């Protein structure tokens, strides 16, 4: 690829950096569980009246859990590939 990248001794830096997808999965996993539980167990009539009858926590919590699962699956199925020590061409490692 470029003069700059090929002179760097650590070409595998992209891989040594943690995978952001797991962090997002963790965040939305925690948020999803908490908010869904709030929706199922702790929704008052006042909460429902505020939103004209919608259980906001429940209907937001479930999509959050889905997002968490999708990111976890993506990270699991397509892990970050460690680029070769000598970069051949710059196009090898899309995550």
């Amino acid at each position: 690829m470029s003069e700059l990248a090929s002179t760097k001794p650590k070409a595998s830096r992209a891989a040594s950096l943690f995978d952001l997808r797991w962090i997002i999965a963790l965040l939305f996993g925690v948020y999803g569980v908490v908010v869904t539980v709030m929706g199922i167990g702790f929704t008052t009539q006042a909460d429902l009246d505020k939103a004209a009858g919608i259980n906001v926590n429940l209907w937001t919590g479930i999509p959050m859990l889905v997002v968490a699962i999708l990111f976890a699956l993506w990270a699991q199925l397509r892990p970050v590939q460690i680029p070769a020590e000598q970069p051949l061409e710059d196009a090898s490692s899309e995550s």
Partner: protein
Amino acid sequence: MHVHVMAAANLRLNAAPIDYVLIAVYFALVLGIGLMARRSVSNSLDFFLSGRSMPAWVTGLAFMSANLGATEIFGMTANGAEYGLPTVHYYWIGAVPAMVFLGLVMMPFYYGSRVRSVPEFMLRRFGKAAHLVNGISFAVAQVLIAGINLYALATVVNLLLGWPIWLSIVIAAAIVLAYTALGGLSAAIYNEVMQFFVIVAMLLPITFVGLHKVGGWSGLVDKIQHANTNPANNAAAQLSSWPGSNITGIHSSVLSVLGIVFGLGFVLSFGYWTTNFAEVQRALSAKNMSAARRTPLIAAYPKTLIVLAIVIPGMIAALPQIAPELASYKANIIANPNYNGGNVTFNNTIELLIRDLLPNGMLGVAIAGLIAAFMAGMASNVSSFNTVFTYDIWQTYVVKNRPDRYYLSVGRLITIVGCVIAIGTAFIASDYNNIMNYLQSLFAFFNAPLFATFILGMFWKRMTPAAGWVGLVLGTLSAFTIDRLVAYGVIPLSGQGPSFVAAIVAFVVDIVASVIVTMFTQPRPAAELTGLVWSLTPRDELRKAEVGADAAWYRKPMLLGGVVLLLALVLNIVFW
């Protein structure tokens, strides 16, 4: 619009312990990202440009998020509440075409020339005078804007949680400092991506619940027609995006459309998105040319769609059925533009929606999202400030030719200095209640001429170094002159029209001045301009990275750019 962010007792939200827990979880992850990103920083390029290692989806979402700060969340929901649908022009006419242009036309020059910042591109193309003008004004603008973001953040914390302003400012600055000084741009970018998802998790429920509560789209239209009868800003103007006279303040329909298309769409937005280093830096951190070009293109998709989850909630909030105090404020300010009563303004739109629509649980997520937006806004200011200061000012003019390790230390140190200055500028900001508007204009003055110089310099090889800096200086001065003429009432303009007009004038003056100066000065030899000027750069050099996985059809920049333009066009027609 006016930015009063006064603490009003009725805006206090009833945050429960569970909400604090959700906010704490977010902060723990933000700091954790800073700590983990630190391990990957071993030289200055790692710190300032993430070692040019980021995949396109990460840089793309960060590109969009870096702009999703205080002005966007407060300002655009406020615009939605005040003006209604014409607000979409900031996205579909403004941002999206500019982002596509950046990805398709300009990114090959930025990324291909291996510059580390936008001012450095100026140095290569026009030499030291233009470089210094650009570098210093950018650094100053960034610490000022960081202060605005910090102040906005502190007022939100103050409103929502009741902490004193000064304490909120210091704590917020300390957290941003912790993760940007540790992890550099990687930490800032990763947090911006995480922030993007939390913001969406805040905006979508508000939009859907709000629409449900007013009876869907037809219910919304019905209630707006009922509530807005004053001809000064009536329901018809708020419910159709063109000609947008209420937002430009230009009564003639033709001139209003011209103002939107050329002022906002062409000069202001192209200037902002294509030359603002806080944005371009995200693309420069991408791992290869293909990913760099796709960065703004990928960002354009969420940008095209998110406006619906910003403008519609704004329109809903100003209805008497949702937030009566905002509805009465709106009726009063339309009847009397100098109205100053009541204890809410359009800038409280998002807080009112959070208060009135979300139960505990989602409340915590929404507060985390708001805080995240302002922290990320400040982090993008600080992380672009430290790069320009270290590379373009310190390394180029002050202390030259030291080992890389030295500049990494300077970068960390100047990050701390930047945050401390931002605390100072945050207190300056707290003295003004419309400084955001003011700074937005300043920013436009600076970006419109910069865009003119860039575009001319990229396509006209004869343009001389002297023309580079003269155009910038005269363009900025002429925009400033327009601003003063409007302020003293010589030019009768209101709404957001003045900044559109100032941008057009600055652009034209810059072009004319550059052409005239070029006629009388010496151009640089063509050999020095390869990779910097369109006609002197071989076509295959611009596209060299489209091989291997990047050759996949869904990663073609042309296709990505074309589809998102089409999407913006279709939405424009749907919401005509």
